[in-house]
């Protein structure tokens, strides 16, 4: 199943999150991530939804999203040039002997050292989802104690022919 990134511009009204999420859950779809963000416009929010699914069902969900009264616009970001970002916070086991390596890795990924204790280090990284995937994989051998990703935000890139 393909992964889709769907951007939904909504009026920031009571219940709108439940309406949008409900369309996915009613079809038995598990949302991989969902972020709700304020925008440059008052009372307008953007939801970025990452979901795996079958082509036709996603097509149907997009149409149903468009039908929601509070939804202003639905854009599929899956196959167009976009800027995507997300943040991860990751806590790993870090005995004294491993700390130098971990700091080095962190530096390469421009991670923030968010917290250090006797046994662990907590790092924060922002960036494209793939970068975050890589970072997590590299840290996995040290033993991940806790991990959290914010879910991505996605904005269409300004290309030469875009107005």
């Amino acid at each position: 199943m393909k992964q889709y990134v769907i951007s939904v511009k909504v009026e920031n009204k009571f219940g709108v999150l439940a309406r949008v999420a409900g369309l996915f859950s009613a079809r038995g779809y598990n949302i991989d991530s969902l972020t709700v963000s304020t925008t440059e416009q008052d009372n307008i929010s953007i939801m970025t939804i990452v979901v795996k699914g079958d082509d036709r069902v996603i097509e149907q969900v997009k149409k149903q999203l468009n039908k929601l009264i509070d939804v202003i616009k639905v854009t599929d970001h899956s196959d167009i040039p976009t800027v995507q970002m997300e943040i991860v916070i990751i806590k790993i086991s870090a005995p004294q002997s491993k700390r130098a390596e971990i700091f080095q890795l962190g530096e390469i990924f421009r991670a923030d050292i968010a917290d250090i204790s006797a046994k662990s280090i907590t790092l924060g990284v922002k960036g494209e989802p793939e970068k975050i995937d890589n970072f997590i994989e590299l840290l996995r051998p040290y033993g991940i104690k806790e991990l959290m990703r914010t879910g991505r935000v996605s904005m269409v890139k300004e290309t030469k022919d875009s107005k």
Partner: protein
Amino acid sequence: MKISGAEIIVECLKKENVEVMFGYPGGVVIPIFHQIFNAPFKFILSRHEQGAVHAADGYARASGKPGVVLATSGPGATNLVTGIATAYMDSVPLVVFTGQVHSAMIGNDAFQEVDVTGITRPISKHNYLVQDINDLSRIIKESFYIASTGRPGPVVIDVPVDISNGFTRFHYPESVNIKGYKPVYEGHSGQIEKACGLIESSSRPVIYSGGGVIISNASEELRTFVKKTGIPVTTTLLGMGAYPETDSLSLEMLGMHGTYYANRAMHESDLVIAIGARFDDRVTGKIDTFIPNAKVIHIDIDPASVSKNVLVDIPIVGDCKKVLGEMNKIIQPPRITEWIDKINQWKKDHPLSYEDSGKGRIKPQYIVEEIYRQTGGEAIICTEVGQNQMWAAQFYKFTEPRSFISSGGLGTMGYGFPAAIGAQLARPDKRVIDIAGDGSIQMNIQELIVAVQHRIPVIIAILNNGFLGMVRQWQQLFYDKRYSHTCINFAPDFVKLAEAYGAAGISVKERNEVIPAIKKALEITDRPIIIDFHVAREENVYPMVPAGKSVKDTIMRDLA
């Protein structure tokens, strides 16, 4: 001058020219009822909230205007749920007010609190919880607009009691502006031209016309289109009446219990012109074998209906009435005489029929035919759900839109009778008949007193087979005839029941009593009438395309 929220509600309903409201009181809506007491519109007190919402739905379907409902919080609201879902599935415009507990108590499991917007979210076109009295009139204006435009549907407004009791200045907005809701009515002219081209070059076209044609009042345009093209028309259950079933180009209803010739024509077709229909599974059967050789043109106001179940070659998003109107300006007829001959042969070889020796218990189909004859085809027919619904659809010939009222998408038993009350209020000039089963009628029989109270002469024709007939039919055909919990001949005496309520009751056991009973019922105009027809107990509805099967699996009659 400041007025209360409850007064604002009544003022808004006046502005919307509401003629009748249906509902039931309770604690948190007393302030609204207090104002309704003197309102200029009629209020019909149901005996169960489900009765109120179905009546509003029947009113809406018969009149084309939104039905308006008011119920209290908690159990009042939950009793509406089936009715709201019924209206949603069949695209019926309703504006439903529910009371809610005081804003300060919401979320605290207060007495008679339920999350109405949460419960109704997936079964309404839109819903609101009023959080500020200054939004109230705008919300009501928007609700009427949303309910009755685009693809219509029910809108729910949940009103906390402190909003009803609050005060503000009243101002009813002239217009609405909702950023995310701009229904498209005009079809794309390029698509319309393309569609006409495809139609003109087709050799086996069929029109598949649905409830959307009735909703958009496009019946005239459809008739003109058929006159210009000579293309045969089949309709869905909810589309019946858009095109006269008595005309030679009508194939009548298609689908699970549709005519053989309608389903066969669809199957053999090279071009299906779907208008205001949504390719429901009761129409398509097994989707892979449905219309295997056809291109598809789909005219619908709801983009989400297009290419949902069946991939469409030429989609036209727009209002059926407008799009057909545009097509009628340019369309040229295709050459299809051979096709029509073929269809006429199918009609001759496989007409709708049933076996009737004239002996034994009365055949239910015969009763529907007699109701048709005795009313001259002029009645509004409501139905319950089950075999009664299918026989009504098959054997009453509908010639006018809004003359057949039935729960299609949800298939709600107990819908027909309260809907008939609403339909009769919308159309006092018509006879309204609920063709019922002995099971379904018991689901909202309490509404009988409403019809008696308001002298509403709805006729309830019970096709009493002592079974939950449609389920029994499936058990007979697909579950080894094990009639598990479908025998309901432990039944009330419906004539006595009618009399207990102050309605008229007629019992019919013999075939020769059928016509006199219908005639007698038609003469009564000041109260509802129950006719209890004792019919053949194990009669089946045919033809039948079993669920998930294709036309070639059609069962034509009982295999003895």
